[in-house]
């Protein structure tokens, strides 16, 4: 999806005076090394692409875990004439459904879902989501190949949404690579309990795991445990390599620019919604980010690449039900 993005600023060149204004509402913080940060990083990348702060304005409301407050923010941004208002969290759907019809000239985007409310007759909502099971699968393949103990630990928040998809993909990838592998999954019931996440990691290590992965913002503590115990770590959503450069092997990184570029193009053309985007390995929205400092054996890298190929060409179907 690179081409349209490059055209976008060109098309809008005459209108530079009217800069493109984006507002984003996020449940967590822009620096969470996870879901919220992945969106903010993507917006910054697009801003640079479009010509910096003169060309594109980004405002954000972070920490909007209260759905109510998010609704107020969404309405407010729309009232103030933002071109695109991104509701970066599945919990904001009801609010969008209600607010969007009042601002037909404003474009809204809702992640992570595929519902644009077109069935409800709403035309100015885009939708986006990540097939996180894909990167999860690839992570799983590598993890199973590298695990000598044959035991892998997973730390997750609550078993739903993006986290649940990632874990399903991961388990599928690991089991496809080594049918005898044991994948222990621990759901800690919270997106914020760093201590419990880290103790879950300790539990995995004590139970013999030599490879760990986890999803959502509270896993930062688990990464520390992995490092301390010299156990490998696989990240998702954003790159977590900086946290433990010695033991992070690979990260599934969301690159929302793929979806955002297309939305911005459509908005320039006067279409304010109706399309749903899924970022995948195929369209480059999901990127496998390898830690260059980690010496990944050739054959394992090859197996990972094969998995990526397989997912892209459809020869590998990941069961997510």
């Amino acid at each position, binding site marked *: 999806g690179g081409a349209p993005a490059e055209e976008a600023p060109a098309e809008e060149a005459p209108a530079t005076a009217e800069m493109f204004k984006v507002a984003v509402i996020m449940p967590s913080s822009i620096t969470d090394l996870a879901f919220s940060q992945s969106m903010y990083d993507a917006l910054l990348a697009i801003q640079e692409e479009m010509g910096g702060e003169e060309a594109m304005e980004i405002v954000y409301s972070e920490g909007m875990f209260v759905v*109510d*407050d998010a609704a107020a*923010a969404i309405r407010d941004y729309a009232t103030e004439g933002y071109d695109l208002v991104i509701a970066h969290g599945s919990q904001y759907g009801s609010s969008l459904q209600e607010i969007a019809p009042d601002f037909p000239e404003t474009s809204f985007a809702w992640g992570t879902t595929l519902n644009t409310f077109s069935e409800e007759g709403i035309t100015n909502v885009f939708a986006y989501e990540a097939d996180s*099971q894909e990167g999860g699968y690839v992570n799983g393949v590598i993890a199973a190949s590298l695990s000598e103990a044959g035991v892998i630990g997973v730390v997750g928040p609550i078993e*739903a949404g993006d986290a649940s998809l990632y874990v399903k993909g991961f388990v599928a990838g690991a089991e496809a690579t080594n049918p005898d592998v044991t994948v222990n999954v621990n759901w800690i*019931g919270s997106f914020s309990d760093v201590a419990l996440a880290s103790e879950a990691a300790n539990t995995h290590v004590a139970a013999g795991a030599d490879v760990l992965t986890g999803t959502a913002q509270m896993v930062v503590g688990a990464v520390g445990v992995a490092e301390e115990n010299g156990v490998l770590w696989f990240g998702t959503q954003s790159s977590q390599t900086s946290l433990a450069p010695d033991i992070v092997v690979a990260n599934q990184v969301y690159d929302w620019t793929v979806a955002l570029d297309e939305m911005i193009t459509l908005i320039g053309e006067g279409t304010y919604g109706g399309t749903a985007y899924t970022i995948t390995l195929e369209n480059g929205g999901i990127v496998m980010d390898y830690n260059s400092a980690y010496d990944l054996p050739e054959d394992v890298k090859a197996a990972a690449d094969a998995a990526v190929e397989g997912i892209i060409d459809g020869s590998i179907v990941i069961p997510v039900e």
Partner: protein
Amino acid sequence: MRLKFDSVIDALLPVFATFAALGVGAIMLMALQVSPVEAYSALWEGAFGSKNAIAETLVKATPLLLVGLGICIAFRANVINIGAEGQMIIGGLMATQVGLVFTDLPGWVVIIMAIFAGFLGGAIWGGIPGALKAYFGVNEILSTVMMNAIAVQIMNFMLRGPMMDPAQLEKASKIPQTARLAEAFRLPRLVPTRLHLGFVFAIALAVLVYVLLWRTTLGYRIRAVGQNPHASRYGGIRVRRRIVTALLLSGAFAGIAGAIQVYGVNYRMITDGSSTGFTGGAGFNGIVAALFGQLHPIGTIPASIFFGALLVGANKMQRVVQIPAALITALNGLVVIFVVSSELWRRRRQKQRLLVDEGGEPPPSESPKTEKGASASEEVMA
């Protein structure tokens, strides 16, 4: 004249304290290279600047008020209920279930049933710590903190499982939420804003709680138990039952708050794994509102609106000047600390006013002057 002026000053004390806190906040804002003037005018704008802003403020105030009413009841019985978060959740869950099951009934019937379900859910979640306290001596601070955590897990379980949106069941994403309530089941809106009937309902309940506490035997008993359980027993009051009643009612009001959040604002339940995701922290802020309202149901009304305004306005401020949301949280904390500290001056001023005047004259209600009596007795002795 003087009295009127004094009570106006008293009423304004929290406002002065808020200004003082915002003054400290201004320093923090300047450290972040943000103009405090711009920031604070955004805060005002967000809270009261437009019809929509005022509506948002009142919408925010509604759960604070409802929780606060329950807190008034519990604290009057000397029971510290910090379990309103969990009680809201259970109330919300039960109310939602009503709307999801009885899809064929008329809207107003479902709404009434839902509010009752919320009442019931909250009452159960408040009644359990109440019974534990009364009959097993389990401290309610401990049990309500624990019950909050348990309620969150029940919510997560229900929204991932039995109560999950059927539409989500088919999808891979599996958002942990219920289906949306039918249009007819939603609380009517008052003006073309998000302000819903729930606010009016909450005000009516405030009056009801006032009547309950000061006009009924039950209220008399609850207050008596809170003030002196020994004398209450002597007065024929069943102390343990009243403790349970107080926590049960307290929970019930929080449960109604949960129901009203679902039927007036969100139209579904959805979880982000925490209680605040659903309650918006109303379970805690409602305690603060009630205590600012002097644990008086009517006083809790302006107190809730004040906090609603602060929360809504602060969000607006964050959007306008683009400061980290964390500053808002810290600022809220400062406002709470400053306002609660300002109470001392209010009490002092009240005391001051009661003190006899400079000349040492006792107030009119007092007995005749002592000097006279004294000299009379001296005469007797002479």
